């Protein structure tokens, strides 16, 4: 009789091709995703005279450098010549490698590398999915192990369809109860990170469980898994259920009708067995989670919106104390200040964390009938999201409220395409990182949910979204 196993152990173990004496394992990869970033990987393959083992198992997206305006002009919309090279060489590299699933700048399904794959039905339960980006963990929403790699390791996957890794340990994060009004998956993950810390998940693969997680839509689960890396965990996943299967059915990369029954049977076998042991667990009460906002330059420097900026001197841990002092100096904030009094200069709604249809609906609900007091931009995660949002009229809600409605890309999450804050400017942003300089040199970022971002836009401060619903 087999011992009770976690979902993570089941998925991992069925992908082990081989093992080194010291425990590193050669893992088989189901799918790989690249953007313009890992050009080093393609250059390396060419120099070494190596090819790509299975070109149909890699998807490529132009997203980091994609302009969010003027896209009817195609590649000419890219003003920065170096950014243009990045987008063009992805096309050259994928053509060289035989990767036909290249969603370039003018492709009707173009979008962010962690938004488009789910639209295609690529991430499926039981898969190992790698990507040249840490937010590849997003795919965990489908009961897959999704994780990022550096360019050299991406090169390895392209050449061999495998990767050497040391197995992480499973950790379960429970979120029980139900979420209150105005509280979203983004607030859940920020609350989890605030609880376990930005290093709390290092060496672990997270499984999110509990009724509040089950209650999330697939899009909410993607937001949650997306930011696993911000807790230090390379991957985070949610067990597949009816919502997962419903999402996948009929999508172009999902199993087709004649294979569906076999696939679903396999997927159902992956769930964590009753009694399976997790070396570490954490538990939060969903009902107690409030809308959150970050105040520092690390993701665990976050607070419920009704809270105040803490006094770093109150932190017992000297590492966190020093880090918080540095963060407050950078952010231009003082201890004791109410979070909701923080005035913002600009609002960004977008990114692989929060640019799906549900996110835009939540923001539009707050923006409807109101006016933005500060510049605000909405950047859909993909052309598909954009089309659906426009079919629902969301773009008109935003435009009437004075928000900009743009074209898809990573945009101001990482500011690679020129969408950035001026030095010293402060944003409310639905992206995933509040690091120093992340949204441009000297930028100050407060990470929030889409609804909170819309509330910040119409009030000019980090207002509690529950006052707007």
């Amino acid at each position, binding site marked *: 009789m087999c011992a009770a196993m976690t979902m993570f152990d089941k998925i991992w173990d069925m992908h082990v091709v081989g093992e080194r004496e010291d425990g590193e394992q050669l893992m088989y990869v189901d799918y790989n995703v690249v953007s313009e970033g890992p050009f080093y990987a393609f250059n390396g393959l060419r120099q070494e005279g190596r090819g790509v083992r299975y070109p149909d198992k890699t998807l490529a997206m132009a997203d980091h450098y994609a302009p969010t305006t003027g896209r009817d002009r195609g590649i000419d919309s890219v003003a920065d010549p170096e950014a243009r090279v990045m987008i063009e060489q992805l096309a050259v590299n994928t053509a060289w490698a035989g990767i036909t699933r290249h969603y370039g700048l003018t492709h009707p399904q173009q979008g962010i590398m962690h938004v488009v794959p789910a639209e295609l039905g690529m991430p499926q339960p039981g898969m190992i999915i790698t990507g040249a980006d840490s937010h590849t963990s997003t795919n965990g929403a489908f009961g897959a192990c999704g994780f990022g790699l550096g360019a050299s390791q991406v090169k390895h996957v392209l050449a061999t369809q495998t990767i050497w890794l040391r197995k992480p340990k499973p950790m379960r994060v429970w979120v029980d109860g139900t979420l209150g009004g105005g509280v979203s998956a983004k607030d859940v993950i920020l609350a989890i990170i605030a609880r376990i810390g930005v290093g709390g998940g290092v060496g672990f693969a997270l499984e999110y469980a509990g009724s509040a997680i089950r209650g999330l839509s697939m899009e909410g689960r993607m937001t949650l898994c997306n930011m696993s890396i911000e807790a230090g965990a*390379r991957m985070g996943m949610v067990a597949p259920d009816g919502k997962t299967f419903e999402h996948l059915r009929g999508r172009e990369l999902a199993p087709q009708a004649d294979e569906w029954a076999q696939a679903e049977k396999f997927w159902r076998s992956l769930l964590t067995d009753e009694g399976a042991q997790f070396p570490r667990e954490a538990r939060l009460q969903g009902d107690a989670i409030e809308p959150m906002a970050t105040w520092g330059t690390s993701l665990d420097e976050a607070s419920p919106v009704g809270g105040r900026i803490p006094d770093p001197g109150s932190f017992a841990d000297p590492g966190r104390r020093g880090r918080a002092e540095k963060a407050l100096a950078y952010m231009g904030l003082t201890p004791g200040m109410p979070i909701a009094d923080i005035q913002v200069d600009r609002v960004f709604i977008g990114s692989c964390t929060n640019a799906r249809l549900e996110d835009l609906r939540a923001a539009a609900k707050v923006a409807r009938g109101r006016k933005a007091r500060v510049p605000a931009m909405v950047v859909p995660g993909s052309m598909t999201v954009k089309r659906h949002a426009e079919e629902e009229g969301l773009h008109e809600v935003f435009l009437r409220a004075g928000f900009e409605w743009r074209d898809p890309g990573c945009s101001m999450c990482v500011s690679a395409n020129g969408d950035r804050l001026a030095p010293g400017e402060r944003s409310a942003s639905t992206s995933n990182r509040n690091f120093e300089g992340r949204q441009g040199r000297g930028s100050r970022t407060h990470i929030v949910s889409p609804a909170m971002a819309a509330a910040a836009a119409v009030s000019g401060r980090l207002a509690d979204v529950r006052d707007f619903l």
Partner: protein
Amino acid sequence: MEPFVSLTAVVAPYYFADVDTDRIIPHRFLRKPLSAGYRNFLFHDERLDAEGRERPDFVLNRPPYRSARILVGGRNFGCGSAREGAVYALQDRGFRAVIAPSYADFFRENCMQNGVLPVVLDESIVAAIAGQIQASPGSTVAIDLPGQVVRAPDGIRHRFEIDPSRKEQLLRGLDDIGLTLQRTAAIGAFENAYYRRVPWLRPVALRQ
């Protein structure tokens, strides 16, 4: 890849917890070819002011540390983005090793892929080394990879752990792909069994 065997070099302290890779290299430089010299982008926004002049108080701009080839970092060093450019920048500046209590997974693996040794020592030892450097800027640390020993500025020797296969790779300067390609037959055998279980995932090249 350049092998790493041993190194005695000046150590620079950058002893903060949770240093992210956006700080080590801002994203806007990741579009540059390697020939641009990634050393120019290392800690760019902290090292240089808005006009591009060196900030005299930044650690790597201070004379004793300009020639540093070993960096001392805090726990969870290299967190955040998986960008390998962070390691390219360190390496191009001459850094061949980092000493820290722990690393983000990506950063550690990216180091290994580029011949940079990520040494792990207890937090108390790393703090002590950082303190010794600050008391005596320009002091050196010796790292002996075959013996797995770090000799701190105070002369005390500390053993560190590293996976034997990773150690061997660093010592010989080998990359992963060559080793993996020796297992091509095993990968093929795995695929035969695997795709019988999940036939809907079979790559085009393996379909009849």
